[in-house]
């Protein structure tokens, strides 16, 4: 067993780290205040291939696979969760759905510009009454000649208002339910009838927009059916399964940054005439962070390896998201405790990290859903089917 990263990934990580340290980290507080990730940052990332890290070169991607993508998300997670969320939703779910189930023509037409970063993707699943219960969606797609006509509204769509292309799940036959009655579509957001409703005013990841996307008689050509007609639910679930590994990678970065900040602050902060780094209460908190981070790092990159080598990964990817978000929660919370009132200040990045972290336990399948996914995978060999 060799646990070292292949050399190309070591060099890639160094490049990404320099990039995020210089181009993203200095903007984190401004991004939070102004509620937007500068377009210029996305353009710079695109120029280095970072908007298409996992995809093969023939689709305009960087050829880095899930391993490369997890490295990108980990390094972004260390410096700014808003930027990580914009790029993560674009690559990890929006474009990923097209990569996994798109036809060769669809990949050339849509995935290439997405991977090159000249177009931005979003993923349209959640609705007012359908989130964890993804099969309960109400958006409909009705065949009309060579087109499908979409009606309905998606909510909490990351990148919704900046996306050029949205992969959308809609009901095509209500009688057939989740398996057979739901189809995935590739929708170009300049289509007539597509509009943005309200934008969420969130606690954290405030630089990443979360939009309501309204479809009013939006005509989508039949060539834009993504995957098999009626099998959209499977396309979306498969996409989410993979996406969870890289979400975990982002939380790993957040946890690492929290620990590093804690170590540095504990060395600098003096109380009772000595640095608080000499206090056992601080040792215990930092040691607990280190152990959980080590375990998480092993889980993330082993799961990336499973994905890159085409092995089953659903349980492990779910564990990445579940464990990662909870480790990040505990780490940023301990980091705030070590920083004291300073870390609670609106002007301190620990406060920003604390607010940014919380969503990772909720989005792309709540942690409760992750536990169900994991349990379902454990019971399935015994013939017990738990719907996820």
């Amino acid at each position: 067993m060799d646990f070292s990263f292949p050399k190309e990934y070591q060099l890639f990580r160094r490049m990404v780290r320099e990039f995020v340290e210089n181009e993203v980290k200095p903007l984190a507080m401004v991004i939070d205040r102004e509620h937007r990730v500068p377009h210029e940052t996305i353009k710079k990332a695109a120029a280095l291939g970072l908007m298409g890290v996992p995809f093969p070169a023939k689709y305009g991607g960087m050829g880095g696979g899930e391993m490369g993508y997890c490295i990108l998300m980990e390094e972004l997670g260390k410096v700014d969760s808003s930027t990580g969320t914009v790029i993560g939703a674009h690559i990890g779910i929006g474009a990923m759905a097209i990569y996994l189930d798109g036809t060769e023509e669809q990949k050339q037409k849509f995935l290439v510009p997405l991977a090159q970063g000249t177009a931005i993707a979003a993923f349209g699943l959640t609705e007012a009454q359908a989130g964890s219960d993804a099969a309960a969606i109400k958006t409909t797609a009705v065949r009309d000649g060579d087109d499908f006509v979409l009606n309905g509204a998606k909510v909490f769509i990351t990148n919704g208002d900046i996306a050029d292309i949205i992969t959308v799940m809609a009901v095509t036959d209500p009688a057939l339910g989740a398996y057979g009655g739901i189809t995935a579509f590739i929708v170009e957001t300049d289509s007539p009838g597509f509009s943005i409703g309200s934008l969420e005013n969130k606690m954290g990841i405030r630089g990443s927009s979360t939009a309501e996307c309204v479809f009013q008689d939006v005509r989508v050509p039949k060539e834009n059916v993504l995957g098999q007609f009626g099998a959209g639910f499977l396309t979306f679930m498969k996409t989410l399964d993979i996406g969870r590994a890289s979400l975990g990678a982002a939380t790993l970065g957040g946890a690492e940054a929290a620990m590093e900040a804690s170590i540095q602050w504990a060395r600098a902060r003096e109380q009772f005439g000595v640095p608080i780094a000499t206090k056992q209460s601080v040792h215990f908190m930092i040691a607990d962070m280190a152990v959980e981070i080590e375990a998480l790092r092993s889980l993330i990159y082993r799961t990336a390896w499973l994905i890159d080598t085409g092995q089953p990964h659903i349980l492990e990817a779910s564990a990445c998201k579940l464990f990662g978000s909870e480790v990040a929660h505990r780490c940023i919370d301990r980091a705030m405790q070590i920083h004291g009132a300073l870390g609670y200040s609106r002007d301190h990045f620990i406060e920003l990290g604390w607010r940014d972290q919380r969503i990772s336990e909720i989005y792309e399948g709540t942690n409760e859903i992750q536990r169900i996914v994991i349990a379902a995978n454990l019971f399935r060999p015994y013939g017990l089917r738990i719907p996820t």
Partner: protein
Amino acid sequence: MKIIVPIKQILDPSGVTVRRDKERIFINKEAYILEAGSKAAIEAALQVRDVDGGEHEIVAVSLGEPRADDALREALAMGCDEAYLLTDEAFQDADISVTTAVLAAAIEKLGGADLVIAGQASADTGSGQVGARLAEALGYACVTAVYELAQEAGGLQATRRWGTGYARVQVSLPAVVTVAPEAFPPRYAHGARIMDAYRKWEVTIWDASDLELGTGALQPLLSFRRESFPAPLEVGEKFQGDPAEVARDVVTALRIQNLIA
């Protein structure tokens, strides 16, 4: 134009602690990186190509341990076309004269260069001699500590440090140019090129026999005795007192140093 860039891999300074009190350097984490001055030299070469979009061939060469392969692959990732690793046990104790002889032999074997661009001085040993000695060995023109570089008819125009100011000089080709690192902040390598640098592209390895170097050329003139610490630098001058007076004093001091007009 053929541009050859000699590069150097060094111990990553971020993994090193300097303990002045113990007169020792501790290596906490042994990691090696492409030295910043070398990166600036690669950047300067790439900029020559960017400016006119011409068919310039950019070749990176490095004298070092086999691990310098990584530095050369980073050079490929940044945009170099070819990479050569000059490595041999006989190079192990190379001082500046041996380094120069090996690099010059490699450049000759590559058919010479129109332009050699190197860092001004490496971040570890920092002698700043290799560029000038290389020019002497190859019989090329030489300009050091260059801040700006542009091609012009029959050669180059270079802006270099000159006392407390700058001088613009014309250089005929072939030439060796060493660049000031702060003047050529290196680009980030494209992710796809990083993957290709390890998966697709090759680094050619040459040893002493490939370079037809006999033992005479490989005999160092210098030998290592011991290392010691230089005296601590007296950093700056402190001005205290009434703000208006302090401001006047600072301006006067800067004028005396010829740092402002």
